């Protein structure tokens, strides 16, 4: 049985800070994450042709690893994390993933030995638990996923992560239809249930292999909402709905830590500040220096409490200034250098607040994720921490309240469209039951009918 969080790790929002986690995590070669300094986390995707064979893929990752490490020592960066997000072949053939991890770690060890640079390797297998048309979260695909973790853990990966997909069939349907109950059910209920299974598995494997079960992100749902919502002028989804989905996702992603993960949370989890407030684990984040991978409206704000600072992903290719991993890795390292100076000169809280203020009023998403408000969402979750449904609903409600207060203050300006969308969500939420069982059975009935690809057996239902 997992132990649920019912209280906050920090006594107040102001205690939260980049480079500092209540429970730092030692990993890899000399690295300690959240122990008073920030570290760049370089992310990359192999060039398309590289996926053709195991050998090519390994060679590609060797180049990526060497390039990244070489640039870090050229500019004097004290520490670095590399994250390899698997391409499908690497997870579906667990020994491929293991071989890549081994090849990368070998190079990192050489650099560590020669230069003393602190470093660690994160591997993120793909959540390959699906058939062509349906999610297939349990059974042989689940076993394959676990085998992939096993292989990378045995062969050099220091940090294990995944972006698990539970609930996404229902979410995908609901997000394009402003269906509040569906969003809550997909992320907050189904997503949480699946996370508990996955992360109990990953935590066991990590323990057995002496590596770190790091964390998960609601990429499949909250990020999808954020992406569809897009920039200020996009018209695909109200940003107020996207942030409600995000708040809900915090209840879900927390399940990893409840099942034994210890952080660092994964970079694309914009819910991570909320998670940190509850759990005290270190977190990776991405923002203004992951524009190579996506655009968002919280470029600086997300740095506020990060322990690792990531570029999310960049395809490996040449630029005037070196290969893409070198360019982005260098930018990250300088961002970290700035944060580390702030920590050493006693100015870290000021810098944190400046990061936050850069984007707090830029968008409702930034407003809610600003660490002071994120902390409040955390409290709403912890209050009913034992109930996946209730805590997710609480988070959504608190999110709406926070935005409304922001609007009332005059500083957060919303479009009429965003306000209307928010009002609808809030009304929907208020109309929902407080009884988890009833919510479950209502949703089961409705979504079995409306969402053709939804298979309750995925969740043991």
């Amino acid at each position, binding site marked *: 049985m997992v132990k649920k969080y019912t209280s906050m790790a920090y006594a107040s929002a102001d205690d939260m800070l980049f480079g500092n986690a209540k429970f730092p995590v030692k990993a890899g070669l000399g690295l300690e994450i959240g122990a008073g300094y920030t570290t760049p986390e370089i992310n990359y995707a192999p060039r398309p042709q590289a996926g053709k064979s195991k050998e090519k893929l390994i060679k590609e990752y060797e180049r990526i690893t060497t390039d990244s490490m070489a640039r870090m020592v050229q500019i004097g960066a004290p520490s670095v994390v590399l994250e390899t997000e698997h*391409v499908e072949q690497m997870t579906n053939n667990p020994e491929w993933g293991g071989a890549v991890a081994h090849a990368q770690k070998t190079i990192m060890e050489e650099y560590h030995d020669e230069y003393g640079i602190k470093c660690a390797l994160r591997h993120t297998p793909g959540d390959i638990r699906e058939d062509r048309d349906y999610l297939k979260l349990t059974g042989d695909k689940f076993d394959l996923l676990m085998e992939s973790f096993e292989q990378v853990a045995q062969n050099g990966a220091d940090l294990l992560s995944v972006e698990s997909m539970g609930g996404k069939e229902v979410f995908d349907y609901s997000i394009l*239809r402003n269906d509040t109950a569906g969003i809550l059910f997909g992320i907050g209920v189904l997503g949480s249930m699946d996370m508990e299974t996955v992360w109990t598995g990953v935590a066991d494997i990590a323990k057995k292999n002496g590596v770190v079960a790091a964390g998960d992100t609601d990429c499949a749902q909250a990020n999808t909402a954020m992406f569809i919502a897009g920039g200020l*002028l996009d018209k695909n989804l109200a940003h107020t709905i996207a942030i409600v989905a995000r708040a809900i996702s915090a209840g879900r992603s927390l399940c990893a830590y409840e099942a034994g993960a210890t952080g660092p949370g994964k970079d694309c989890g914009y819910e991570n500040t909320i998670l940190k407030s509850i759990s005290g684990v270190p977190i990776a984040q991405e923002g203004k220096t992951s524009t190579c991978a996506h655009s968002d409206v919280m470029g600086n704000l997300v740095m506020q409490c990060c322990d690792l600072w990531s570029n999310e992903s960049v395809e490996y290719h040449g630029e005037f200034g070196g290969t893409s991993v070198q360019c982005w890795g260098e930018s990250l390292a300088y961002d970290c250098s700035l944060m580390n100076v702030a920590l050493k000169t006693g100015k870290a809280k000021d810098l944190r607040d400046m990061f936050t*203020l*850069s984007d707090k009023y830029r968008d409702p998403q930034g407003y809610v994720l600003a660490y002071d408000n994120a902390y409040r969402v955390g409290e709403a979750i912890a209050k009913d921490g034992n109930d996946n449904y209730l805590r997710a609903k609480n988070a959504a409600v608190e999110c709406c309240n926070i935005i409304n207060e922001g609007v009332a203050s005059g*500083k957060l300006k*919303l479009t009429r*469209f965003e306000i209307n969308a928010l009002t609808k969500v809030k009304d929907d939420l208020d109309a929902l039951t407080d009884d988890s069982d009833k919510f479950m059975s209502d949703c089961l009935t409705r979504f079995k009918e409306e969402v053709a690809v939804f298979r309750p057996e995925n969740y043991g239902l």
Partner: protein
Amino acid sequence: MLDLKLEDIDGILVRYNVALEKEMTPDEAAEELYPKDELVYPIAKAIYEGEEDDVIDGLKAAIDAGKDPITLINESLMVGMGVVSQLYDEGIIFLPNVMMSADAMLDGIEFCKTQTTEVPEPKGKVVCHVAEGDVHDIGKNIVAALLRASGYEVIDLGRDCPVDEVIEAVEKEKPMLVTGTALMTTTMYAFKEINDKLLEKGIQLPFACGGGAVNQDFVAQYDLGVYGEEASDAVKIANFIVENGEGIEKLREEFHKH
């Protein structure tokens, strides 16, 4: 914590969306566009509002009043959806409205079909798929929904779709257009394979490609490729073909903006 003074915020960021929001509400804008015919008006409005039940009620009333079910598809359902598409293109309403309207419209079409033995003529047939190895299907879902909403028949091959299945579907369905979506650089190469296999079989038709990983440079590398940035471009490409034929060069001239 530090905070900004209200008057200082604009120096740091500008909420252009707030600054630019149209004076007119979406409902007002829609009202201006509905057809005036008193039997058609409620159907179009119900489409806009995404209320299936009201759509069916409106159709029933119109049929009872003597309107032909097949004509109603074009003259009320499609017209209502046209209002929705126009408002979406103008940035007045958002995608979920379009999706809900499309759902309502499809329900309406199904209903009309039950009221007659005639078979409605779609604007054209389009095969949609997500590249082999790729599970990212939301973009494709939007593409398919918008195409359907514009009156095209969509054969949706789903995600992670093997190359050969696309070829088979094209041979069988003889569509006017195939679309492909890929969000990963490792999967988008399947498009080139599809292109080559189609050409091998002597099949020439536009192959519209999009999705996060895909860019114009890549798509321009294979003969049939036409790049589209937004899901609504798929509709524009289909419409362009209806109006101007399937010449790839002309399509590229129109849609290759980067």
